[in-house]
């Protein structure tokens, strides 16, 4: 198989197959959650749920709404950079094969900066997980593996952003493997996040806690 053919295969056919598997696994997960009973909500609502749901999603994106981010601004910035980098790498896996004309130099180099910064944060996170007693106590093999494999994936994304063909092939092969592992690992937290934030917003919104409302 020639290099271009191989690149085309890992970018297209391979990605499509693993994305179908990935999507199917998430569809099953979403179905499994939705067949559970919704938590009952009782009592005359103090406020509407819309405000609660909106603020619930919003509080993740701004550092001042939670004490855990307000008092650890550096940690929040790490979190923002890490997710921005991972998001850039994910976007690249779609744009390279399906909208290559969008991958103009400034887009690729912007992604590259985000991904490089995220990989630096990734190293910090790995070191922290190995060295902090309070994190070691709660860490599983999946935690270590997920962090390290995500770091490797981010590092392989860097040469891919420069259009280095070998780098791109390695990046897409690792992406495929990663897509197969993610639905089984803690990296899948982002799917549950949508459910959890919604449920949080409904409960605390109608009680007038998040946001504080209803006059009491």
């Amino acid at each position: 198989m020639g290099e271009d053919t191989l690149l085309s295969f890992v970018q297209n056919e391979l990605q499509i197959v693993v994305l179908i598997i990935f999507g199917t696994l998430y569809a099953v997960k979403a179905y499994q959650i939705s067949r559970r009973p919704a938590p009952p909500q009782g009592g005359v609502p103090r406020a509407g749920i819309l405000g609660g749901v909106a603020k619930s999603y919003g509080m993740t994106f701004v550092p001042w709404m939670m004490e855990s981010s307000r008092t650890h601004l550096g940690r929040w910035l790490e979190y923002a950079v890490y997710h921005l980098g991972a998001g850039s790498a994910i976007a690249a896996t779609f744009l390279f094969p399906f909208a290559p004309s969008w991958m103009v130099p400034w887009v690729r180099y912007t992604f590259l900066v985000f991904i490089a910064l995220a990989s630096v944060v990734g190293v910090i996170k790995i070191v922290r997980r190995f060295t902090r007693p309070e994190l070691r106590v709660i860490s599983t093999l999946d935690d270590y593996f997920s962090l390290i494999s995500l770091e490797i994936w981010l590092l392989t994304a860097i040469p891919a952003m420069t259009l280095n063909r070998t780098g791109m092939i390695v990046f897409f092969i690792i992406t495929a493997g990663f897509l197969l592992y993610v639905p089984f690992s803690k990296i899948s937290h982002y799917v549950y996040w949508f459910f959890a934030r919604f449920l949080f917003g409904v409960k605390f919104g109608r009680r007038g806690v998040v946001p504080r409302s209803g006059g009491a």
Partner: protein
Amino acid sequence: MSGVDIKTEALQRAKEELEKRLNRTLAVSASNLCTHCGWCIDTCHYYKATKDPHISPVAKAEKVRRIYKKEHDWLSKVFPKWTGAKELTEKDLDELVEVAYRNCTMCQRCTVNCPLAVDTAQILGAARAALNAAGKSPEILVQLADAAIAREESMDFFKEFYLEQIAELEKEVQERLGNPSAKIPMEVQGARFLYVPLAGAHTIVPPAIVFNAMGESWTMSMFDAANYGVYLNDRERSKKIADRIVKEATRLGVQEVIVAECGHAYVTLRWEAPTWFDKPWPFKVRSLVEVIDEYVREGKLHLSPDLVKEPLTYHDSCNLGRNGGMFEAPRRVLAGVATDFRDMNPNREQNLCCGAGGGLIAMEEWRDMRLTAGKPKADQIKATGAKVVIASCDNCRHQLNELNEHYDLGVQVFGVAELVANALTKE
């Protein structure tokens, strides 16, 4: 039946209960939602006080989550060691008693500070339900819940004695108000409010003074608001206890049930219990503090702003505040009686638990841990420089009094109604 069989049956019941509790919130929170990022760790008053990584919110939740994962998580079913999953054992149940009762007050501070909104209280609540099913709940909580249920079943036995006690308290109300016609009305049909107190004169006399001074149409009944079934996460017991009040309110045809200054009773009757019944209730539920706030806002109740000249602060009970949404009503009332109000930092939905929530106040065997876990609250109070601390929850007040003694805070602790009653009787 052999001892082994009994243990196996208990374990089975615990497993079934864990499964039964698995609603959408729990299914998500007990899944891979938690990334073990550790943001929750230093939001917990237990961790703040001890720096013990084994009692951080995520570490506590993980003790239950790993059991759910073994049953429901794809990877954990095949490679449990990879994800830390494990099958529930008898030993785990014994460990969970400490995790769910001694080491967590279900205050939900970790949840409002979790970027992923993991509901740790619900996870540990499921553990409490499983322990209850296995017959491993703290005995004192079971006894208190059963005593509340027995009170309804043996009402004839209690009624005469209770009415005599109320008559004594009525005299005290009359004396303090200087009004011989002041009443503590019992079982009055068609009253506007059914006030449900706690056990103890301190939750009856102050509101009686306020209601009489306001000329309110109110009544009491034979039952108190405390619901220890909630701490056990025992739906059957909780519902029976709440049902006594629902039946009384319905029988008397009141418009509203007014709950004493009690965190768990308020959140139970205001938000939780309505979901346990098939039909909507024909009455509203409010806290006594909300009613007093209404009197103040409507200009019916005139308070003296110089009643408390010393610095005063307010402790947000987790159940009234973070879980119940009541933040401003007590502050508005206190603004009317104090010249130097100082909020604690943090406050409202970010308040720190006093360390006695989740029924821990009743479990004397863990008093040491309760006082240790209350240290961050004691430090908070100290930092305000307040000499008077107000709390609208009876369990919090007990704990704050103990913290006051233990950490030498030099404060006085009152409830909102008590302070307002003092203001009214001072005049």
